[in-house]
């Protein structure tokens, strides 16, 4: 840059010198003057260039400084991180004493268990919401009245009643909204005073809600209480009660199983019934057999009679050929005569055999 500028200066000086010489020799030349002007213009341009050069230089310097500063910052940060890490690594972790044995379980088991106990551990939603409302009302009242009434124990009561919770325990306050009750003495006046100053709850809040006494009649859930433990009813209906009742009946509950007893009784009953039925069946069978036997014998007798009749018919000739039906239906008189006749034949046969 210096050389560049020096060349311009020299040129201007030379042009100036030749111009002055020419003037001194009284021989001014227009061309020389123009040279001087041109040289001067170039010098001016160069100076502008120089200015820009200087600006750039300054900027470079500034950027360098910034770089250095940023480098330093980066180093600081990294150094800080490094130190931090070292500290973290060297910090001894608190060793909690083992509070109790830990048990493993799976998510599935946990969810199953949660599902199972939800019936006995989760209060109905309306109780939670009402309890929330009650809290909100109490907060409002505490802020408005400035009263430091602690959380009332009966906030678990299902139906919130604005005004009564704060006045609970001081009948004077609930009975007399008029300021400065003059009746009660000592501590109760002191307790009632802050509440009697309190304005009664705004009626607009209650306009849409039923009065408390009506609500208990209409709301089926009114008065419902949630117990996170087995109630007396449940205990009374359970196995322990059954056990107790056995003891009070002077029976040994050990090994006694009502279901088993029931089953045994039923089985005995059935066995008895079956035996009876079997006896009846056997008797019927017996009767049937006897009847059949009798019928069989009757049939055999019949057959024997018929054979006899046929035999006698073939001997006595066609006159007796009216058939077995005639024989059997012909009354005892005819039969008798035939048999008499047959007897005679038999006698003859016998005689023959003899």
């Amino acid at each position, binding site marked *: 840059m210096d050389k560049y500028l020096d060349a311009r200066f020299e040129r201007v000086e030379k042009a100036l010198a030749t111009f002055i010489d020419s003037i001194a020799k009284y021989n001014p030349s227009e061309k020389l003057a123009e040279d001087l002007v041109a040289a001067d213009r170039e010098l001016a341009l160069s100076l502008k260039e120089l200015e820009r050069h200087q600006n750039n230089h300054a900027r470079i310097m500034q950027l360098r400084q910034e770089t250095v500063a940023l480098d330093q910052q980066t180093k600081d940060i990294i150094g800080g991180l490094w130190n931090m890490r070292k500290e973290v690594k060297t910090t001894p972790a608190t060793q909690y004493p083992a509070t109790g044995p830990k048990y493993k379980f799976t998510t599935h088991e946990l969810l199953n268990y949660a599902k199972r106990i939800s019936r006995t551990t989760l209060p109905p939603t309306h109780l939670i919401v009402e309890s929330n409302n009650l809290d909100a009302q109490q907060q409002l009242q505490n802020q408005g009245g400035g009263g430091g009434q602690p959380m009332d124990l009966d906030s678990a009561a299902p139906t919130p009643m604005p005004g009564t919770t704060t006045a609970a325990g001081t009948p004077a306050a609930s009975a007399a909204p008029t300021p400065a009750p003059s009746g009660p003495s000592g501590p109760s006046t002191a307790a009632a005073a802050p509440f009697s100053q309190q304005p009664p709850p705004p009626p607009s809040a209650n306009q849409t809600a039923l009065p408390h006494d009506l609500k208990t009649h209409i709301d089926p859930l009114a008065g419902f209480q949630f117990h996170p433990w*087995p109630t007396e009813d449940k205990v009374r209906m359970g*196995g*322990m009660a059954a056990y107790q009742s056995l003891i009070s009946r002077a029976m040994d509950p050990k*090994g006694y199983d009502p279901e088993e007893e029931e089953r045994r009784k039923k089985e005995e009953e059935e066995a008895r019934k079956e035996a009876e039925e079997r006896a009846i069946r056997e008797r019927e069978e017996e009767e049937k057999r006897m009847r059949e036997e009798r019928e069989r014998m009757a049939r055999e007798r019949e057959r024997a009679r018929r054979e006899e009749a046929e035999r006698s018919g073939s001997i006595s000739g066609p006159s007796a050929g009216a058939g077995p039906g005639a024989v059997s239906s012909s009354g005892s008189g005819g039969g008798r005569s035939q048999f008499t006749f047959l007897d005679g034949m038999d006698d003859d046969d016998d005689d023959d055999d003899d």
Partner: protein
Amino acid sequence: MASDPMSVNSSAREPPAAPGSGADEPKYGGYTRFELELEFVQALGNPLYLNHLASRKLLSNPAFVAYLDYLQYWSRPPYLKYLTYPGPTLKNLELLQQEKFRQDIISPDLVERMRIEGMKAGIDWHKESFPTTA
């Protein structure tokens, strides 16, 4: 209220077999020891029942105290998961191991306070999940 299912000369030292173990348990009045003890340990969650036990002087009976100690197996698997009132049951079982609590529970004030606070706690710990509808 039903009396305790324990006789003083009870020889039970081992916790009963959990259901599904396949063992053929003897029955007492139609219930296994597991069922009866589960019912009893859960009834202990009820402060009124504790008061009832105290009023019958059972909580000062050394045999009964030993039985309460024995019942602690309910705080371990595999029995733990059968409790359907886990909070009050385990809490009261733990408290009952203390001599002082066994003496104090005879007081109706303490019973009433436990009852009210227990009911309140049963509701309060679900509150965050429900919005206030003022």
